[in-house]
């Protein structure tokens, strides 16, 4: 082995070590600042992580575009959905009087809210767009209570990192990070275009995150759980969608 090739070998080794430890340090810092999504594994993990990290650095506090009343879509599309569950139909028959939203996990005061209770809090409205991953979109006025208001009522622990949210249909559950949970446009929505929220659009209670694709705006919400890790939920990918190949973070 000549001196030159040995030097080359040593330099290559050093560069590789530096590169690997650099990546290690980067991963550690990214984890510390919450830039790693729950679905960071697998072959598409690098892309998901880059997207989520870039968006958290660029758009943590930005506001989704709001539109004027004249831009509201004449016919808001009620997307096709799986058949309503028996539990839903029973509550629907009683006019949703017994619909409850339970909030638990890393909170000081686990609470179960009725719809009337939620409606008694200061209501907010936003005219924002529902954007489906398929490509279509429509604009509507969404009326509800900011999720942050409810979270402040129950007292979220400081080590909380995610809010998992569950539909009455056990197949559908989602989660968001605290940046989105405390975001002023993230609503527990019970009204639309000045009326009750129709069942076809997620009534009586729908999560709205206008900075992410429509599938994060889960319909028929009955349960919120505040947590520091999504590992124990389902396959540990953050929500039901990544188990079907879709991104957990859907702000793109």
């Amino acid at each position, binding site marked *: 082995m000549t001196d030159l090739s040995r030097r080359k070998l040593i330099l290559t080794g050093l560069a590789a070590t530096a590169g690997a430890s650099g990546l290690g340090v980067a991963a550690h810092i990214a984890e510390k600042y919450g830039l790693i999504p729950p679905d960071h594994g697998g072959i*598409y993990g690098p*892309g998901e992580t*880059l997207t989520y990290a870039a968006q958290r650095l660029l758009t943590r506090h930005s506001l989704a575009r709001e539109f004027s009343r004249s831009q509201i*879509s004449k016919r808001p599309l009620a*997307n096709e959905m799986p058949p309503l569950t028996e539990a839903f139909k029973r509550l629907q028959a009683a006019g949703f009087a017994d619909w409850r939203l339970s909030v638990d996990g890393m909170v000081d005061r686990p609470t179960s809210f009725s719809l009337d209770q939620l409606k008694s809090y200061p209501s907010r409205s936003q005219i924002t767009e529902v954007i489906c991953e398929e*490509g279509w979109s429509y604009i509507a006025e969404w009326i509800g209570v900011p999720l942050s208001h409810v979270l402040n009522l129950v007292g979220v622990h400081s080590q909380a990192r995610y809010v998992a949210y569950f539909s009455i249909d056990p197949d559908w559950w989602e989660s968001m990070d605290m940046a989105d949970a405390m975001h002023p446009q993230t609503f527990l929505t019970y009204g639309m275009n000045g009326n009750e929220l129709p069942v076809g659009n997620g009534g009586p209670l729908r999560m709205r995150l206008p900075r*992410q694709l429509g599938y994060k705006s889960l319909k028929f919400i009955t349960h919120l759980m505040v947590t520091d890790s999504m590992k124990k939920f389902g396959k540990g990918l953050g929500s039901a969608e990544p188990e079907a190949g879709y991104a957990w973070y859907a702000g*793109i």
Partner: protein
Amino acid sequence: MARLGSAQAPLEACVPSSASAVPSTTVVSRHSALVRVTHWIITLCFFALLVTGVEILISHPRFYWGETGTVLTTPLFQLPIPSSRALVPTGYGYVLPDQNGWSRALHFQAAWVVVLTALLYGIFGLFTGHFRRNLLPGKADLSWRALSTTIAGHMRFKRPSEEEAWSYNVLQRLAYLFVIFVLFPFVIWTGLAMSPAFVSAFPATVTLLGGRQSARTLHFFVSLALVLFLVVHVVMICLAGFWSRTRAMITGRTRTHMEQT
């Protein structure tokens, strides 16, 4: 790095003066290592983006203009193809298998790789003079006379002259510049304009295009333009000699007969 950039430099030295017009075959440097590596990475990503883009498109093969659009509104146009979602009225009696999950993941991952690679290429091109030397057409080449001669040659499917083995002709230069500085940035822009989080921080990205659905429609048309470029690019390569041109883009070298000046 310095060596990468200077790969083109010995070219002039290889071109003999008329005094020494002796027929001989010489191997000359054609493409620098960085151009070759980025070319093939971008090629790979382009195919990934194209296939996954088509998969995403068939879940809603309708296009709109403005901010919004659904199956309840009138489309600008609808592609006469079946869809992978039952929601879309296509006239076909069946629904295609839904491939959106992995298609979206691969689409955005390939987009990341292509954007980072293109940044590297762009910085390289500016600092080494690659754009100025290899892609910017000379003043003389831009005259109507010179342009029409080159276009006429292409119209007759004339095989390219020897010198085009080691330098681009004016139409190639204009086409490559258009792809690199117009189509490519525009396809990234129209893509970002569809990201709800990105436009929340940079709303002008989408409002300048006339709305989210306009951005989606434009993204489709720019992609079509890029596919058209790819087709012409490959046809031209086949016409010029598929293996010699492809070899030059892999090994960086090309053989040339130096009897002409």
